[in-house]
């Protein structure tokens, strides 16, 4: 037996350290267990390794050549076991083209960071996941 938790686990992919701490605290408050990654590849590695992950909070701009779009493209590729995994993009990069691409690729919801408080987004994600389960 190992320590268990009834909390849902969410993967937070965000590279700015101060922001990571704040978002993580909000998600924990909303009732999540949080795993953090700061690059796309680390996030994809955790999806492979950590089966408990039920949802993803994804930033658009990340270190390296890849953006959140690369993450989604891999995660939602035809035949992928994560086709139905809920992914929430939280970014200020709300160009219409980006937004449409995310939604076309199967993102659950796109939050423009400047328009929402972080705790509001966290609670919104929690509510969404809880309602899905019913």
């Amino acid at each position, binding site marked *: *037996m*190992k*320590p268990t*938790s009834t*909390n849902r*686990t969410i993967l937070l992919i965000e590279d700015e*350290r101060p922001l*990571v*701490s704040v978002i993580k605290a909000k998600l924990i408050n909303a009732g999540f*267990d*949080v*795993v*953090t*990654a*700061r*690059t796309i*590849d*680390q996030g994809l*590695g*955790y999806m492979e*390794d*950590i*089966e*408990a*992950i039920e949802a993803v909070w994804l930033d658009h701009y990340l*270190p390296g050549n890849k953006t959140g779009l690369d993450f989604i493209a891999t995660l939602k590729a035809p035949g992928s076991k994560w086709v139905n995994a809920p992914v929430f993009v939280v970014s200020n990069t709300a160009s219409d083209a980006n937004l449409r691409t995310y939604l076309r690729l199967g993102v659950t919801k796109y939050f423009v960071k400047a328009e929402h408080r972080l705790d509001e987004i966290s609670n919104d994600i929690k509510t969404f996941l809880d309602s899905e389960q019913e």
Partner: protein
Amino acid sequence: MKKQPTKKKTILVVEDERALLNVVNDKLEKSGFNVISARSVDEVFSGATNKEDLGGLSIRTIYKALDYLDDLRDIDAIWLDHNLLGKENGVDLVIKLRANGKQWQKIPIFVISNTENPETIQSYLDLGKSKYYVKSNHRLDEIIDDINLFLDDANNKS
């Protein structure tokens, strides 16, 4: 295939993210380690229950870690995250361990963190026998293989 060591090595895992910790514990156990852990005060289990009932025990705060270390004489290695629950981080833990007598000065510490800050990394290296991994640059299995190699190598030298 890796040869099974004659005596199981014991590793202490200190990581604040529960889901990650569970996976790390599983992987280390599969790789032949005896994994030791303790939960922080907000966890349900008491220390005593932990040791008897749980295969893996994890430490999410510094004070919990130090409590357990006083009891544990057989730790071969420490897996340490930099950012932990509470005000103190992995560097604080290493400083306290190193100050706590000779037995802790020889234990290899593997710091596995998201932090790429050169100053943070240097403070671990300055504190002695530590190895630093930036989480985003390594898969978990890779780090575990590396720890096994390091410990086998150290064993052969002694």
